[in-house]
């Protein structure tokens, strides 16, 4: 491998497309994705279930052929140089992938040798990973007996056994408790600091926000926003004003529409029992909004001012809250009925 094989871009896709046949027609899972991920960062791929995250990831990891477009990973074409891509990447799938009938160490040793590393080098590297990922206490036990957190650590170790340039993880913290989740975040940051590009999918807003250096938000197979978490939120608004009105028969959408017309308010939406307002100037907006509420005789039982979240960004782009769309199957497979309904609802 020459130095020209180490591009500044870890991932580049151009017009990536994939459709699945499903009952009653085809589902466009990925609809023309253009993506560039610079090397050496944690890149988050945020979206609701069924948005096309996993399909994109499976194309990038050579598990699935795209219908159209091009994808390059670690400098090699996914379509024409899949063997080269496989040598350069690591992958931690949603299903895990540890061989539960073998010990953790046996899993690691086999994985390493599949990448044509010498037996001695593999033993040494497995030992390093056992120490770094803190697998020492259970590495020689059959993996079936592991707890969820232990198993996930083994699976991450399997994903980096070949010292990949790009590590792909599909919903890596799903099912983990908060402490294990925080530990995994630290480990992924550590990998990034050591030079590995980390590309992960998530439907957790907090994870995308706190872990990613950059992120793309995907919905219905297309990217709807991309940037650093701070950029995306700043692009949305300066602040978010959340109001909980006390109404006998709360027509929150109507209230949101009315407040959207107030000075300094850039967007408004109903969210559960609240109305969320994107405001350009907090002081000015509050004065106008509370005056309008008073004029209407609407009593407010709670109000708060906060920085916008990624959910506000998602809400503005799609008209839906990512929290609401979370309910669904854990696997990011094409879900024709749900996806179609949601799309129909989002259209004007």
């Amino acid at each position: 491998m020459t130095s020209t094989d180490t591009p500044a871009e870890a991932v580049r896709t151009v017009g990536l497309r994939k459709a699945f046949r499903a009952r009653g027609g085809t589902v466009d899972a990925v609809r023309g994705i253009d993506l560039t991920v610079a090397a050496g960062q944690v890149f988050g791929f945020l979206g609701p279930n069924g948005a096309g995250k996993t399909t994109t990831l499976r194309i990038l990891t050579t598990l699935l052929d795209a219908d159209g477009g091009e994808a390059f990973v670690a400098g090699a074409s996914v379509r024409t140089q899949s063997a080269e891509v496989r040598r350069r990447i690591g992958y931690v799938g949603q299903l895990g992938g540890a061989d539960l009938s073998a010990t953790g160490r046996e899993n690691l040793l086999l994985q390493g040798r599949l990448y044509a590393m010498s037996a001695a080098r593999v033993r040494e590297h497995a030992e390093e990973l056992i120490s770094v990922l803190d697998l020492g206490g259970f590495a020689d036990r059959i993996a079936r007996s592991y707890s969820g957190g232990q198993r996930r650590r083994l699976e991450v170790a399997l994903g980096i056994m070949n010292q990949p340039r790009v590590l792909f993880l599909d919903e890596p913290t799903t099912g983990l408790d908060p402490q294990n989740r925080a530990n995994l975040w630290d480990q992924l940051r550590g990998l990034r600091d050591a030079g590995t590009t980390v590309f992960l999918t998530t439907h957790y807003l907090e994870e995308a926000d706190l872990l990613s250096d950059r992120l793309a938000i995907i919905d219905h197979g297309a990217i709807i926003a991309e940037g650093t978490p701070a950029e995306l939120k700043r692009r949305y608004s300066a602040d978010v004003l959340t109001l909980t009105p006390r109404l006998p028969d709360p027509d929150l959408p109507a209230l949101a529409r009315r407040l959207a017309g107030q000075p300094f308010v850039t967007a408004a939406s109903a969210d559960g029992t609240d109305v969320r307002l994107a405001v350009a100037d907090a002081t000015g907006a509050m004065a106008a909004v509370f005056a309008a509420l008073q004029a209407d005789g609407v009593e407010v039982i709670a109000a708060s001012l906060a920085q916008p979240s990624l959910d506000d960004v998602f809400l503005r782009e799609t008209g839906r809250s990512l929290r609401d769309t979370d309910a669904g199957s854990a696997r990011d497979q094409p879900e024709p009925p749900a996806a179609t309904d949601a799309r129909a609802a989002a259209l004007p």
Partner: protein
Amino acid sequence: MTFALQTWLFFRRKLLEALRQPVWIFTGLSTPLLYLALFEPLLKSLAGGAGFPHGTVLDVFVPGILTLMAFGAGMGAGWVVIWEIDSGVTERLRVTPASRLALLLGTVLRDIVMFAVPALVVVLVAIPFGFDAHWGGLVLLLALLAMLTASASATSSALGIGLRQIGSLAAVVTGTQLPLTLLAGILLPLSVGPVWLRVLGHVNPMYYAVQAARDLAAGQVVTATVGAGFAVMAALAALALWWGTRSYRRAMS
């Protein structure tokens, strides 16, 4: 070189998996021994009659039992394949540069060992009861039936990948097992049956394996039947390995 190493690594992994579940080894051995103990006495009264040209009943029956064992050792492969797809193991291995044929062969070779070792035990147990062992023929017989195990194992894996459901796989495998074994003349030679049954037997690849196995067990190594048995089994094994490899190569979305 890399391919041979990967095949060895996958074989070792599969063998270890089997050895950690002694119940498999126990049932693999107890079923043929039960056939010998409980079915052979029934056949005794048929000795010397039609369809039993070679000496004792066991000389006809043991090759049949060995064929049944060869098929049985391979046909379960698909269950584990489905389990490995569901737990993500297959997906993880497919993202490595590992050869898909090596991945398939790991299971196939393990199944061949799981056939050959109990097969030897059955032969050794049958000898004191009157089985006339011809060692040269027996070695070739095991080689022939190893190809049957390979065919069954690779086919079962391919079916497992294609069907993805334990229930569907079980229906297909058990649904084909009975006609295949009955039409192969495994327990009773087809030559005792009517013409239509014998004609039907000729479209069953396992029939050729059983016929060749009987010749080989009798020490008749250079016969047209043996030649046909090896030709049919080699072709079947090649086809099954091709199908299994192709199944692993294709996307399982």
